[in-house]
């Protein structure tokens, strides 16, 4: 019976904590929704087709076959029909990939089809952006399937192990497949894609936890109140906290970055490492301010703990760490835009994978700095309201 009374007491107490109840019942639904959108479809890819010479006559065959794949979205390539110079075509195709218009482009040059009909190997050019292995592999897969499908009517055998349809092809000698990567290469691994975003994620995660809990303790213990009675400005206290955490978070950033670079075993330049560190440090400052804000919003340590999954989980799903956000509905894409790690990851990949200078990520850096200013402002307003009204 006493156990029952304990249970009654627990139920009564929790049912009066609306925030805990909302978290308890709604959080799993939110997470399950995110998981659903993350895994419900195969990756959708944008593919363009560029044909020259005799291949032009078969362009619609390629397009309609690729379109049969529900995970392929065909795009029209903004390249003039009269342009035939291979070097100019190469540049224009890469430009389209760089702007994000296309994930992959199938290019069949002047002689490709005639070579095939004449029994020669011929060369099929496949352009990919290359920085996202999931997308790259989806593009390769879709094109291989389409070629396999077309093999009975056209001499486009992509490899010797294709389906029985290949046997009916007028030329079942596999084509030479020339892959053109804007970034990376055939050796580019999935891990190379993920590792550059991990330092920002871990620094964000641990800094957020450390600052939330530590500052919550400062408030509950009453030491913050004592500091506010002393001739110390609120901003001075916060600035002190930022500097104190900065020491540890910077050290953590250095250790994590060094470890990751060692793990990837890539030869990164010093300027690349320095640029990467700037992104990680900005991320840390966002997390630090967000942690302080969470500690002010929470009434106790238990509520402070609830902020951890609330802040971290959406970023795991939506911040482009594992899943491409483009597969999610617009609502989630908007949420993704207001998540700091989305921008930190975009900058980290731009620096580490695409080897672009820090200045190329100016927009992401500006957004991260904006996050710091906005969160700091909200935090000081919340803090002053909380600590001056009770």
């Amino acid at each position: 019976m006493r156990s029952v009374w304990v249970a009654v007491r627990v139920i009564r107490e929790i049912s009066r904590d609306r925030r805990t109840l909302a978290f308890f019942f709604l959080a799993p639904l939110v997470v399950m929704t995110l998981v659903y959108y993350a895994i419900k479809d195969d990756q959708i890819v944008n593919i363009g087709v560029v044909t020259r010479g005799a291949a032009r006559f078969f362009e619609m065959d390629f397009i309609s076959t690729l379109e049969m794949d529900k995970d392929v979205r065909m795009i029209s390539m903004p390249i003039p029909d009269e342009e035939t110079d291979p070097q100019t075509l190469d540049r224009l195709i890469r430009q389209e990939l760089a702007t994000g218009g296309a994930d992959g482009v199938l290019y069949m040059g002047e002689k490709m089809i005639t070579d095939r009909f004449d029994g020669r190997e011929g060369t099929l050019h496949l352009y990919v952006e290359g920085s996202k292995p999931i997308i790259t592999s989806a593009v390769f897969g879709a094109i291989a399937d389409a070629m396999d499908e077309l093999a009975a009517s056209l001499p486009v055998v992509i490899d010797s192990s294709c389906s029985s349809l290949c046997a009916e092809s007028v030329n079942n000698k596999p084509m030479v497949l020339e892959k053109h990567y804007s970034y990376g290469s055939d050796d580019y691994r999935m891990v190379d894609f993920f590792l550059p975003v991990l330092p920002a994620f871990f620094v964000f995660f641990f800094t957020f936890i450390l600052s939330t809990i530590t500052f919550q303790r400062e408030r509950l213990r009453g030491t913050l109140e004592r500091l506010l009675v002393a001739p110390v400005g609120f901003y001075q206290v916060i600035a002190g906290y930022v500097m104190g955490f900065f020491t540890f978070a910077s050290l953590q950033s250095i250790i994590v970055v060094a470890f990751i670079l060692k793990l990837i075993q890539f030869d990164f330049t010093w300027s690349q490492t320095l640029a990467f560190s700037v992104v990680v440090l900005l991320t840390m400052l966002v997390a630090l301010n967000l942690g302080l804000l969470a500690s002010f919003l929470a009434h106790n340590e238990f509520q402070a703990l609830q902020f951890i999954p609330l802040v971290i989980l959406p970023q795991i799903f939506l911040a482009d760490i594992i899943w491409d956000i483009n597969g999610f509905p617009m609502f989630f894409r908007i949420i993704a835009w207001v998540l700091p790690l989305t921008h930190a990851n975009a900058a980290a990949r731009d620096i580490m994978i695409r080897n672009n200078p820090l200045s190329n990520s100016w927009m992401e850096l500006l957004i991260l700095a904006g996050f710091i200013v906005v969160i700091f402002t909200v935090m000081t307003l919340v803090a002053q309201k909380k600590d001056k009204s009770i």
Partner: protein
Amino acid sequence: MNAGTVSTEYILRMEDVVKTFGGFTALHQTSLTIPGRMVFGLLGPNGAGKTTLLRLVTGLISPTAGKLTLFGGLEPGASAARAMIGYMPQSLAIYPNLSVVENMLFFGRMYGMGEGALKTRIDEVLETIELSGRRDDILANLSGGMVRRALLGTTLVHKPKLLLLDEPTAGVDPVLRIKIWETLRKLCDEGTSILITTHHISEADRCDRVVFLRSGVIIGDGTPDDLTRQYQADDLEKAFVVATKEGVAT
């Protein structure tokens, strides 16, 4: 007025001060003048408004109505006023992973003390709170009584002119309670004004002047002897009981 110069006229003056939180009035229209160099007690049950009054003096909260001035004219919350106040809350508001001396150094620096003067002052305060021998011990390794003494030490380190103590002896054993009161009396003799909240009658009896508070209203004000006589009681405890029943504001 500069920090360090204290008006001898009064240390605290409240004129028709009211403090409400939402629809709840924690302190009703209260007027009170406290001269310097005395131990002034605020006696009342839990929820009487003692802590609210103390927090108004610190400047942590502002009056809803009325006027409150310190040291002959300073607003609470003004930098000069804050520099002259030492505030010891009910909770153990001190850093458990720092040593006694590290805590004192930290709070001294928060009050802008120079390093040389601070170190000399810490030695004095450590003598006063009888923790010289444990100065480098981490607080987490000290007994509850020692931590409370260290807390008092951090409150005294910048030589405050006005000491605000919110139930400083709550949960303290009788021996330590006597020691704390001896320290307070000594500080008062040296010129520090002390405003102390308590719900222990025996402690109120040690004050130079006492205010009875009930539900945010002053229902008695005077020396312990005056109040005892005023309510024709044998002692302060009985006087408080009578005042509480009568609910008469003096």
